[in-house]
């Protein structure tokens, strides 16, 4: 494996992280909630696809047809029941309740599915790759994931800028008080945002499951990576999430190139460096509310 290979693979890995992080970024941008259960929800997507394979013989791609609508409903209900109340209860409470959810989901998955690893079958595309040189080979499936990530981000972008739902999302994110004064029910808007977030998480989970193995403990790990991608790219910026995912992916694969056990470590260190650099440059604005931006703007 050469360094160029590592970097290319890192960029492609960025697609996975971007897909995973999209929902996290959306929920933060609209509601200022960091959903600690995000990775766990993605994992439920993967396990659902697994179950649909075992009990209904569906391929993961077909399973998505069932999973995505289901995830939309789950997200909507989650917001209207748990998260809405958490938001009202105080700024720290959503963190505590989503953390509780993370613990519950992880352990329930452990009970139902045991600690064994599973994976999903990507089909023919899973074994295809393009050989560019003796040292560089590009897996087609990873390119597909990157493509899906870009399509999802682009679709979300269009939703935000061209549709009524998107308008209402942006307005409520910016000023929920005034949004209600022009007739918008903010609870419905938030529920739609969470529905979309959970749906993208489930989608990401299924693709993640096709790309690598997963087990009940994968939820928290993927949450951390998704969060790192969001922070590196800039809290509240959608396309920044793609950028952040790519930076993280490259850091990780380069680390693995140095030594396989340095994979996650390099990612974490780059995350910290970006954090410190941003803090020094922007004098402590990190983590303060960042508005959901129209494409291209950096979050400040």
């Amino acid at each position, binding site marked *: 494996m050469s360094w160029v290979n590592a970097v290319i693979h890192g960029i492609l890995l960025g697609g996975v992280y971007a897909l995973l992080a999209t929902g996290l970024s959306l929920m*933060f941008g609209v509601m*200022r*909630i*960091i959903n*600690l259960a995000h990775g766990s929800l993605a994992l439920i997507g993967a396990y659902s696809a697994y179950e649909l394979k075992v009990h209904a013989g569906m391929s993961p791609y077909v399973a998505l047809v069932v999973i995505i609508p289901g995830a939309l409903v789950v997200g909507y209900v989650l917001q209207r029941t*748990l998260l809405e*109340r*958490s938001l009202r*209860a*105080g*700024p*720290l*409470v*959503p*963190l*505590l*309740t989503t*953390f*509780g*959810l*993370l*613990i*519950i989901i*992880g*352990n*329930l998955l*452990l*009970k139902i599915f045991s600690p064994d690893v599973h994976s999903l079958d990507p089909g023919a595309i899973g074994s295809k790759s393009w050989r560019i040189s003796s040292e560089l080979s590009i897996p087609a499936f990873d390119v597909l994931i990157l493509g899906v990530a870009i399509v999802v981000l682009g679709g979300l972008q269009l939703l935000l800028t061209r549709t009524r739902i998107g308008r209402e999302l942006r307005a409520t994110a910016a000023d929920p008080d005034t949004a209600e004064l022009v007739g918008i029910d903010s609870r419905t808007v938030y529920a739609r945002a969470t529905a979309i977030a959970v749906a993208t998480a489930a989608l990401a989970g299924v693709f993640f499951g096709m790309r690598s193995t997963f087990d009940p403990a994968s939820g*928290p790990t993927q*949450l*951390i990576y998704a*969060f*790192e991608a969001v*922070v590196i790219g800039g*809290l509240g910026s959608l396309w920044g999430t793609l950028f952040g995912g790519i930076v993280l992916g490259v850091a990780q694969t380069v680390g693995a190139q140095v030594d396989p*056990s340095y994979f*996650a*470590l390099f990612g*974490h*260190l780059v*995350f*910290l460096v970006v*954090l*410190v650099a*941003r*803090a020094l440059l922007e004098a*402590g604005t*990190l*983590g*303060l509310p960042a508005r959901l931006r129209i494409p291209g703007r950096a979050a400040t």
Partner: protein
Amino acid sequence: MRVHRWTPPSLFFTGSLSAIVIALFFVPLVMTDSVMQKLTSLFILVILAMMWNALAGYGGLVSVGQQAFIGIGAYGTIFLGHVHTVAPFLAMLLAALIAGAIAVVVAPILLQLRGGAFAIGTWVVAEIFAIVVALDHKLGAGTGTSFIELNYYSPHQRQQYIYWAALGTAAVLLLALFLLLRSRLGASLQAIRDDEEAAASVGVRVMTGKAILFVLAGLGCGAAGALILANQLFIEPSGIFSVDYSALMIFMVLVGGLGTFDGPIIGGIVLYVIQQQLGDNGVWYFVLLGAVAIAFALLLPRGLMGTIQDRLGLRLMPVGYRLGKKA
């Protein structure tokens, strides 16, 4: 009108608590090793709860990464006691101090973050330490290691010393928190919690206040980690650096009462009782903890002691002020 710090109920409670702590010191002389070990576990839980409460309840900092310092305390003890043959209990003390020192280094970075970003930031720090430790073969790498230096003592002696170390640590931290909250820092922390911007505008050093809490929590969790190692003798990275410890801490503090002084103690006792009934490792144990924590967060946000405080107007520890009539 006179401003009182002590009220009759708080005098009674503080007196009782001190009496209980003193009485507990004599337990090893009369009780079995099994009782001592159980109480030691309880003291460790109370320490963890106190520290998490210090961060979240007094500083508004929700951390899901305190396991970083638990692990540093435990592995620091191994590093000093096993690799460098420092006397076991001295190693534990030094390891706690090392954890505090690392908290000093990490604080300026992490405190740039707010809310959920801070939370996950602490988790990332914990993961970093878990990875670094797991790569070190002298520390036993991924398979874990034992604190065999403690075998120098007889089992009974060992249990006694660990018991006293745990009780002593809990008492010292309790006292430290008490003094902290009654000091000027305590008042400024209350101000920070109420309204950070307003507090900063009247000159409260917001960052310093939070940093002090963060370092104290790091030190306390480090001590707890060293005690956990001593109490269970064997640790491995994925266990001692596990986010499950954060789950336990959040549960104890939410149930006991976020931001109250006595809440963590009650929360620790509640968790301890649950652990004795359900065992502390199963799936349903954690599902229960998670569900109860969520229920408390949404339905009884002030926790048990907080609600009692509110309903009865009672403050068991004299860390606030009361307006009185006597001159």
